[in-house]
């Protein structure tokens, strides 16, 4: 295959969704990688399109179609073609139909690889694509490099980012999902095991770095916008979202700037009042560890962790949380972690930046009182 890299781009409220930005970064590094396929083997059938290399952003036009803003953003991200998949039958999200469309697009463009964010939709569509094509899917990648024709060197998450795996993928077309959240805020012990891709690489923290706008990128005028109408069967449309409703309004745990976390140390359902009060004062929300939800103290939607919500606040104030792997996988994108814990040897102490050694039921009310007192002096 000598065609482009296809990247499934999810558009959220007119903008490229954050996880898709990271997917684009990995896709871009693949498209411009050192071991790109021989241009002379370009398929003449795809003349007029970026036949050799190139990066095709694939956007599904459901209702309304992609916003112009997203198109402009894509042009600034090294995308060489924006392909809008549209069909009268595709009025809502339908996982198999999306996969079928990409399968047909692989053939139409002689695509070398397909990259998608490991979101619910991206991971689901690529798994269907893997099943339809019989190809393997490498999940949760953070870096990818073509090493030879049909061979890729990958760095990917295991255990939601608590471990990294160096892997080799051999397949006619590489199907990759890109870790939707950031990786551990720890330096990756990279001794050159994965060659540094040109424009996307895990930085010292192992996070995929996606340049917001590249000066050397191709200007918007050079990015052709094409449409692709897949041939869909009834079976492809058997499963579809009958309703997709974003909630809007209210602060979400995933996007909160401050998260006040409570764990086993809170002691019971009544102990969260002080944490709620503090979160209110800091303009944040309360998040909890898995033990708290499995005890039924708080609802699961407040759980931070591998099987709960992944957060990326400016401050994560973790109170009475030991710092189990399952929990830390959900807060490794937090910019600053401050721990309040009675145990100076708790695992969280090696993940937090600052710590207060003590009982949260003493420290938090005192902190609330101090913030209130300071505010009241105005």
């Amino acid at each position: 295959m000598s065609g482009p890299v296809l990247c499934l781009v999810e558009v959220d409220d007119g903008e490229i969704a954050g996880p898709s930005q990271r997917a684009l970064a990995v896709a871009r590094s693949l498209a411009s990688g050192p071991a790109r396929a021989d241009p002379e083997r370009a398929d003449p059938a795809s003349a007029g399109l970026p036949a050799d290399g190139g990066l095709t952003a694939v956007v599904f036009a459901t209702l309304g179609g992609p916003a112009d803003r997203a198109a402009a953003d894509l042009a600034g991200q090294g995308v060489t073609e924006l392909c809008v998949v549209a069909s009268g039958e595709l009025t809502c999200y339908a996982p198999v139909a999306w996969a079928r469309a990409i399968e047909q697009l692989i053939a139409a463009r002689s695509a070398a690889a397909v990259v998608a964010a490991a979101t619910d939709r991206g991971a689901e569509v690529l798994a269907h694509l893997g099943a339809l094509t019989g190809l393997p899917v490498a999940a949760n990648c953070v870096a990818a490099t073509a090493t030879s024709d049909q061979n890729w060197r990958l760095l990917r998450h295991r255990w939601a980012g608590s471990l990294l795996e160096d892997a080799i993928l051999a397949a006619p077309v590489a199907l990759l999902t890109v870790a939707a959240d950031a990786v551990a805020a720890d330096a990756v012990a990279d001794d050159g095991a994965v060659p540094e891709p040109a424009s996307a690489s895990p930085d010292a923290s192992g996070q995929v770095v996606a340049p917001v706008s590249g000066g050397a990128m191709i200007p918007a005028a050079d990015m052709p916008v094409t449409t692709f109408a897949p041939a869909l069967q009834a079976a492809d449309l058997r499963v579809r979202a009958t309703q997709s409703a974003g909630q809007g309004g209210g602060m979400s745990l995933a996007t909160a700037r401050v998260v006040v976390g409570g764990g086993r140390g809170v002691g019971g359902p009544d102990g969260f009042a002080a944490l709620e009060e503090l979160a209110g004062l800091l303009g944040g929300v309360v998040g909890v560890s898995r033990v708290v939800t499995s005890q039924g103290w708080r609802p699961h939607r407040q759980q931070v962790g591998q099987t709960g919500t992944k957060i990326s606040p400016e401050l994560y104030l973790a109170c009475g949380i030991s710092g189990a792997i399952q929990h830390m996988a959900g807060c490794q994108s937090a910019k600053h972690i401050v721990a309040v814990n009675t145990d100076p040897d708790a695992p969280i102490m090696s993940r937090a930046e600052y710590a207060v050694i003590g009982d949260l039921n003493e420290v938090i009310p005192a902190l609330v009182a101090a913030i209130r007192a300071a505010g009241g002096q105005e």
Partner: protein
Amino acid sequence: MDILVLVKRVPMVGGKMVLTADGQDVDTRLSGFTVSPHEECAVEEAVQVTERLGGTVTVLTLGPPEAADQLRDMLALGAHRGVLLETDGREWGPIATAAAIAAAIGELGPAAFPLILAGNEAADTGGYQVGIRLAHALGRPCVTGIKRLEVAGDLLRAWRDYGGGQEEFELALPAVVGVKEGINLPRYPSLPGRLRAKRAQIEVRKPAWQADGLRKIALRVPAGSAQRARVLGHGAGAVPELIRVLGDIGVLAPAGRAEADGTVA
């Protein structure tokens, strides 16, 4: 309704990841094993459905002989039957796993399980694929990421989180559903459940391993986890210093921040 639930034996990881010397696996000498939280919820959901509508719950896993322990754990939660697709301990990729499960279902009677539940993604690999690949092998519809499920006759309604709200699906049985933790609160095993699980006969089959194009070179622990937090102080006495740090981070309201800085300076 007879329901099949897929589970996977994974190391029970605590506060720290430790790898074997060859970097191929998580060191489990000091840890136990468990199933992913998503899968425990899948078993609970299946048990709840059969409590309402009648029928049985079969749990199936592909793994080493010791994975029978995880099947017994699930039997203790109320599942009725355990099937082990026994491996020689090698890691199986999603393609081979789904193919082996599809073949086993063929032998167990494909019509026997109108509903197949899987955990959405395994804790260790997070592949998001086995349920979907199995659905294709069986020619069934599939939904994943599900946090609410309603079964009414031959119809299934399922909901998952989407963009801060929810996304709804409707599909006809037979179907495959990937569920996520939060769909229910799994019960604790009862004493009679434990005793029944201990005595239960586990059905064992031995599928053949196959490669699937993705090869692990080695695992590594992200470096730098040896840092230590800077201790700001002990108990309530640490509050002034804590306020200063919160101010530096920039999460105190401007007025409160200025005052707090003034207070503790």
